[in-house]
């Protein structure tokens, strides 16, 4: 069984949540450096599948990014 596990590639669907590591309770829209890695070149929010974010944090991230976009901190579209 161990051999089988070694051969299998890491499933991108089973990553650790990058914000659960810091035990984030709230994502601030004013904190640009934390939001930036979760936005791609075109200004879209990165999918949960690729970042490994948990659903709770993804929802918080979405509100934070939308607020930041409204205030002109992040772009809607590049």
């Amino acid at each position: 069984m161990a051999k089988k596990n070694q051969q299998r590639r890491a499933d991108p669907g089973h990553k650790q949540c990058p914000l659960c590591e810091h035990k984030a309770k709230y994502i601030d829209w004013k904190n640009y450096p934390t939001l930036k890695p979760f936005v791609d070149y075109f200004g879209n929010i990165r999918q949960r599948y690729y970042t490994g974010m948990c659903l709770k944090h993804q929802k918080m991230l979405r509100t934070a990014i939308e607020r930041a976009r409204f205030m002109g901190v992040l772009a809607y579209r590049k």
Partner: protein
Amino acid sequence: MPILTPSSEDVRIYEVAVLYPYPINQKEEQLLLKEVEQVFTEAGGKQVEKDVWGNRGLAYSIGGHTEGNFVIYYYEMDPSKIKEVDEALLIIPNLLRHLIVKPPKDYQVLKYSDQYSKWLKERETETQKRERETEEALKKKVADRAKRQAKRAEEQKKETEESAAPIEKKKLTAELDKIISDDELDL
């Protein structure tokens, strides 16, 4: 870092962000900020904290402006009055955007300038880390190469010794004698 907690149960703490254009007269700026603060005082708000970001570039042009000034207020006020404040802020001319947010319980106010300097430091350390890693990789490469060369040199030495050693002196002389004493060779 001040932690925001409302003084009584009837009031809440609100975070109000205000954005106005950057190239602006000092007089106009003062008037605008006074007007904004007046809105809160009329609604019976009490200022807890104020954070001035200063001018920074916008991600997209708002009302023809590519740069803006941010000011973030933390006000303590009655939740029933917040709607009035929101509407009053909408009417103020020359105010590009405003955003009212309820910060979570025990929210820590971090001054933007402090955060920025902290972020810069982190970024620096990150770049330093990358440089260190590349340097380490290079060193490892050099060391590996040196090791390999040493190994090769040793192998070569061994080979030369082996190739030189096999024929012993006695055998050599005997064979030479044999060749010399051979009658069939006409030298």
